[in-house]
């Protein structure tokens, strides 16, 4: 079965292409530089089976949140996420009317990727971002990586693979339209030789407009001190309302934190939102919860979360911290359904599937927040147990002596 392999490299300027690219009969080499991004995409044909469900697996390392994304990238949620519209809901997945989802900080790709995927991929969760779509007839694996100064990437056609490489620069881009130009090269499948390279220009609309640190900043922080009810503060004082648009916050909260839907009124809330149970009683049921809040422009927004009681430590003096990555998004109806897909990514399962195809998502921040959660120590268990027991025993003996013992003296205070 043929695998279609496409490599896209994006440089900042047209002159970078010539100076950073070299080729021979069979291989093409690109060299890295500041802001250079490389995307690899593999398309694998599948034999249609009985399973007609769709699945999407995404991974974005948390360190990637500090980077400015390029126009060929989809701003994915940090961490490991699995979305599926299958009717079977696996253990610890949470459900909503559109998909079931799982979210974790651990890159656990082997467990969720179909067994037929064998593309000799070297997974690198520390540095690379992945966006994988499993459809009934094909599997698409997209990998993003930075190509840093001094790094080289050489590609040549492998067996049973149809290879295409595009090397581009950003010609022009604004809020919605992107124009990139460059060259595109193809390989001959029979002899593995580089066949032709031709000038190419692509014009497309962005579904996701990446967070741009050089523009307006959106401070997102936790009110200090952080107690058991951490308050997420989102400063939108410098933003204005716009028709057909909404300011939103998307949260994928680990089990240790939760939203009280009666207090905070989220637009959407799925997953584990029990208001009382500790984390250790729920961990087999769900990974956590997913929610979307509507925010107000021109003001400071405040969303109160709550932390669950967590398992006592076992002698560890280390503070337990749980992290999450609130995504502040400016979602707008554009009236143009073409933004749902472009040559580099398309709309898939995840929070974006709650919106119409013509919705664009401008990302206004990329922040990781960390909540310390106090916990007791099991090393104190016996001290607490015996102290409780002694308190109770002494108290019961004392009360019994008071009830059944005789009073030493009569009332000394005169009654009226």
């Amino acid at each position, binding site marked *: 079965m043929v695998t279609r392999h496409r490599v896209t490299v994006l440089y900042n300027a047209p002159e970078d292409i010539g100076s950073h690219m070299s080729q021979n009969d069979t291989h093409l080499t690109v060299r890295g530089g500041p802001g250079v991004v490389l995307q690899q995409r593999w398309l694998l044909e599948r034999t249609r089976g009985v399973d007609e469900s769709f699945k999407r697996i995404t991974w974005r390392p948390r360190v990637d949140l500090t980077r400015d994304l390029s126009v060929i990238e989809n701003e994915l949620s940090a961490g490991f996420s699995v979305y599926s519209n299958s009717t079977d809901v696996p253990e610890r997945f949470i459900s909503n009317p559109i998909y079931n989802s799982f979210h974790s900080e651990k890159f656990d790709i082997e467990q969720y990727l179909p067994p037929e995927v064998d593309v000799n991929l070297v997974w690198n969760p520390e540095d690379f971002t992945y966006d994988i779509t499993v459809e009934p007839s094909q599997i698409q694996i997209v990998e993003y990586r930075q190509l840093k100064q001094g790094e080289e990437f050489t590609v040549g056609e492998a067996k049973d693979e149809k290879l295409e490489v595009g090397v581009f620069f950003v010609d022009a881009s604004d809020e919605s339209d992107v124009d990139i130009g460059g060259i595109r090269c193809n390989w001959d499948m029979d002899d593995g030789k580089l066949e032709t390279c031709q000038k190419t220009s692509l014009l497309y609309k962005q579904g996701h407009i990446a967070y741009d640190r050089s523009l307006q900043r959106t401070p997102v922080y936790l009110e200090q001190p952080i107690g058991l009810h951490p308050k997420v503060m989102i400063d939108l004082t410098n933003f204005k309302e716009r028709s057909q648009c909404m300011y939103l916050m998307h949260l994928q909260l680990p089990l240790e934190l939760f939203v009280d839907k*009666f207090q905070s009124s989220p637009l959407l809330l799925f997953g584990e939102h029990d208001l009382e149970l500790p984390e250790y009683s729920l961990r087999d049921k769900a990974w956590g919860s997913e929610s979307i809040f509507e925010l107000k422009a021109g003001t400071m927004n405040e969303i109160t979360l709550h932390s669950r009681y967590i398992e006592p430590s076992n002698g560890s003096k280390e503070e337990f911290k749980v992290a999450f990555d609130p995504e502040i998004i400016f979602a707008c109806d554009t009236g143009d359904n073409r933004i749902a897909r472009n040559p580099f990514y398309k709309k898939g399962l995840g929070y974006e599937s709650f919106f119409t195809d013509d919705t664009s998502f401008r990302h206004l921040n990329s922040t990781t927040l960390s909540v310390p959660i106090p916990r007791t120590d099991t090393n104190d268990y016996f001290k607490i*147990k015996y102290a409780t027991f002694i308190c109770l025993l002494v108290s*019961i003996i004392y009360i019994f002596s008071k*009830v059944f013992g005789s009073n030493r003296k009569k*009332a000394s205070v005169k*009654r009226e």
Partner: protein
Amino acid sequence: MVSEDWALIVASFFVRVGFFLFGIYQDANFKVRYTDIDYFVFHDAAKYVYEGKSPYARDTYRYTPLLSWLLVPNHYFGWFHLGKIIFVVFDLITGLIIMKLLNQAISKKRALILESIWLLNPMVITISTRGNAESVLCCLIMLTLYYLQKGSYTIAGLLYGLSIHLKIYPIIYCIPMAIFIYYRTSKQGSRAQLTSLLNIGLSTLVTLLGCGWAMYKMYGYEFLDQAYLYHLYRTDHRHNFSIWNMLLYLDSANKGSGGSNLSKYAFVPQLLLALITGCLEWRNPIFDNLLSVLFVQTFAFVAYNKVCTSQYFVWYLIFLPFYLSRSHISWRKSLLMATLWVVTQALWLSQGYYLEFEGKNVFYPGLFVASALFFLTNVWLLGQFITDIKTPVSSTSASKKNN
């Protein structure tokens, strides 16, 4: 009622109005809300009822549906705070019954001071004006005792059954109440004793089982589970005043791996002490003593409960004026007792604040030691109360009182 009584009631009413209005202002202008978190639960549950749904659609609604029915006017009139006024009315009625029941032999000045313990108590006022429903239960218990004193056992039983339907704990009062009735009717013969006890017992069952059956028909097993069974299997791992709290937290996390069974038997000392303190009515089976015994019994029940928050203190606070009206404890000792209770509670609250609002890890020793100190203080107070109500009244003072 004399003019001073009316003045106290009017003052109580206006103080409550002040607290109520300040609560609305605080909710609108301060970060920390005045309205009790439970009031939001009642209000939301009432909304479901108003829409023809079950109040149990509201997470954490763990009460009889009757409470949510009480707040349906909130949604009919579209005013969030209306239910608080209902709770304040119950709170004031409770104060009126306290006035009626308070020993007539004490001086008017003393009676006014004791009545003020309920009517002008900031803690009581705050609880009802914040929207906590304890005042409804307090009112029903007081009405039960009012009719019990009047000898209207059927009405007392009906109200008592409703009280137990609202919250299970007043069931502990059945022992001292039965002892009181048994002795009160002893002069009329054993047949009258049995008839009176059957009368109040059956009428209690009528409302208790009747309401239970009606709620079960309407809301099914969810009603039984959420209103009653939940209180038996709940974990209670979150911090509260109870001495059991830390052990419950650790045991709930250590299931099957070295945890103890001690916390599973939390109800044993509690019920044992509620039983023996209830039997103190036997020593002096008169109505005034019954009210003091109920105070001591409730105090013991709350002190040993596996969960204890400030609202539970109201459970015994309704009996405090009656207890104090008969107390022989000197004012110096009273002051010491009150100081210890306040100081140990404040110590716990400071630890609770560090944990809850500053996220500091004060579970051990801070919070645990504070819980233990508060518990031991409560136990010592309980011992003093028991000694006090066992203290024989001298013939001089008794005759003065009867005069």
